[in-house]
């Protein structure tokens, strides 16, 4: 056995000793000052790995049946998609950092504010790169909902891809006047016990953020950098509200759905009378595919629901940074953004500014197919509130588990 032990430790040490190297960093810096032609040359014929959330058929269809063939045809780029979001991306980057991997598994990622925050914290993103993309000139950076991500300036480290607002979803036939504030919600669940819940994921936590803003006294209550005292004070009120009414929640608050898709299903079955989600509720494709009844409608909370953008980033150890830039530039092109805005397709709002576009594109956007069921971004505009600092989200996750679920 002793000999076996020696071998074992030898191998272990051999594997875990970290090797160091800095040869690729120079090339990366060079790329930042390269011309777009040079970047295009470098991008030609590459294989680009894109890690994104794959939880929607409409999104998967847009990517697999439009984007992938388009970049292949236009730029000879093989775009490969893998499933993963927030924590998974951060985990991957952390793991690769720890193992000193210079050529990572993934080139580009689809992220939002709190992943942006975490990736910046561990220096996982490469950039700034947005300024290098020709199509970035069309982006509506004057809109603070686009240029600021969870109270952080984007600064060219991630490219906006879509903008959307959180909305509450209900069946207008079953529920003629849905609640629009916390007191109304309290009254509602007492009258209809078991028909409301909070999904223990990104979506549910976003709802809780807008509740916290309401408890804080107004739409802008959470603006600015993270404030520990404010968080403690407001979150306490929030947990009190939830725990006091827990018995009126779905399954008497003994458990909460793990994912929003599960909550959507509960809404579709009629178990829940109220659901909610980003993309103005994501109603259109669910009605069209027959999941939701046609009487489904969406609205914003009186005190406001969160409006934010989601972004595309390039990882610090991406093997194909030029290829990733080419793909991102394509995703920001009027053509790709228009296709993405199709109400019967991915149905997501463009980040391009109509004023900056060529007139013919502007017209095409105006002529694009409109939603039949869900509300538009414009309709929810008056009730839009900005994302608070990412720490709020991270703390809510933990405390929701500790103070509500495990309570």
């Amino acid at each position, binding site marked *: 056995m002793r000999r076996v032990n020696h071998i074992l430790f030898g191998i272990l040490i051999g594997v875990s000793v970290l090797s160091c190297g800095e040869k690729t960093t120079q090339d990366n810096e060079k790329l930042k000052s390269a011309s777009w032609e040079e970047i295009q040359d470098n991008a030609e014929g590459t294989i680009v790995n894109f890690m994104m959330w794959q939880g929607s058929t409409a999104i998967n269809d847009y990517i697999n049946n439009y984007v992938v063939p388009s970049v292949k045809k236009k730029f000879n780029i093989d775009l490969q998609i893998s499933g993963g979001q927030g924590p998974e991306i951060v985990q991957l980057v952390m793991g690769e950092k720890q193992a000193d991997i210079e050529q990572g598994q993934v080139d580009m990622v689809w992220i939002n504010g709190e992943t942006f925050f975490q990736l910046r914290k561990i220096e996982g993103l490469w950039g700034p790169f947005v300024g290098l993309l020709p199509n970035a000139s069309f982006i509506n950076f004057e809109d603070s909902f686009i240029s600021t991500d969870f109270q952080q300036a984007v600064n060219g480290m991630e490219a906006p891809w879509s903008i959307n607002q959180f909305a509450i979803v209900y069946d207008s036939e079953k529920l003629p006047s849905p609640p629009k504030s916390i007191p109304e919600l309290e009254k509602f669940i007492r009258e209809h016990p078991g028909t409301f819940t909070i999904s223990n994921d990104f979506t549910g936590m976003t709802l809780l953020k807008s509740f916290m803003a309401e408890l804080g006294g107004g739409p802008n209550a959470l603006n600015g950098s993270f404030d520990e005292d404010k968080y403690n004070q407001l979150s306490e009120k929030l947990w009190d509200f939830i725990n006091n009414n827990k018995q009126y929640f779905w399954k008497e608050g003994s458990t909460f*759905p793990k994912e929003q898709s599960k909550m959507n299903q*509960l809404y579709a079955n009629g*178990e829940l009378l109220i659901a909610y989600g980003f993309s103005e509720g994501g109603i259109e494709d669910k009605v069209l595919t027959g999941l939701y009844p046609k009487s489904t409608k969406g609205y914003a909370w009186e005190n406001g629901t969160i409006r934010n953008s989601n972004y595309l980033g390039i990882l610090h150890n991406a093997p194909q940074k030029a290829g990733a830039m080419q793909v991102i530039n394509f995703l920001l092109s009027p053509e790709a953004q228009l296709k993405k805005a199709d109400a019967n397709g991915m149905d997501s709002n463009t980040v391009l500014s109509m004023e900056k576009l060529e007139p013919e594109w502007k017209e095409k956007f105006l002529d694009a197919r409109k939603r039949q069921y869900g509300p538009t971004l414009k309709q929810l505009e008056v009730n839009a509130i900005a994302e608070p600092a990412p720490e709020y989200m991270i703390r809510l996750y933990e405390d929701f588990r500790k103070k509500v679920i495990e309570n």
Partner: protein
Amino acid sequence: MKIKKSNVSILLFVLIGVVPFAAAFIYALLYSFGVIGVANNGFTLQFWESVLASGIFFKSFLYSFIIALTAVTISVGGALWITLKFKKQLEKRFLSFIIYLPLAIPGVVTGFFTLQLFSKGGFFARISHKFGLITKASEFPDLVNDGLAFGILLSFVTMVMPFFVLLFLNVYKNERVEELSVLAQSLGANPNQIALRVFLPILIKKTWVLIVLYFIFLLGAYEVPLILGQESPQMLSVLIIQEIKQYDLDKISEGYVVAVLYTLIVSAAAIVLFLPKRKSAYAN
């Protein structure tokens, strides 16, 4: 020449069978003490303290233990009963194929299927609605993602029981329980005595190692509780992965603490089970 060759085999065994396990364990151990990990800054007991203080591990362990024990008990009991009562019929051509079919269904599918049948919008809820037993989906009882883990238990039993039926039938034949029973009968034993004194002892004695192994497998089951479990308490594997993959980067080490504790417990079980001198398990 011969000795050398078997040494190569032993070396390969160590490389494939032992090194990965040892490496994984040491890695988890180091991570749990904050020695490695991008967000950690050196050795600390803080993660162990916070996991032990919160009781989260013990709660989850107890929960998993009870579920696994209940599922194994029901499965073994049911399988024994089926073997005792139906051994003759199950040898017929058609049935002898049918009873193998459940082996083709993995945990992922069992979980998915149970969800489809027993959720509040599922198959049985629809039927109950049709017959006027319920008027709204929410009136249907909680059978999946529920506090009593009914969905998980049902899935486990439907996955494990068929296996034990096949195993017992096989032992029954190979150990000549039939002949022994006839012998006991001719010596004046009644059917109950045969069942309790001949049938049961032989089958259990021949298979108990496997029964314990299945208990350990269920203790660490992942897919089924992931689909059918609730948010708290959670079964061990689900808890570990959730802690390791969480948003708060400073708390990842806590997941490794739970992983280390879990590994220690199942390893201790393996030592108790397999170290004493005895003939090897009946079958795998």
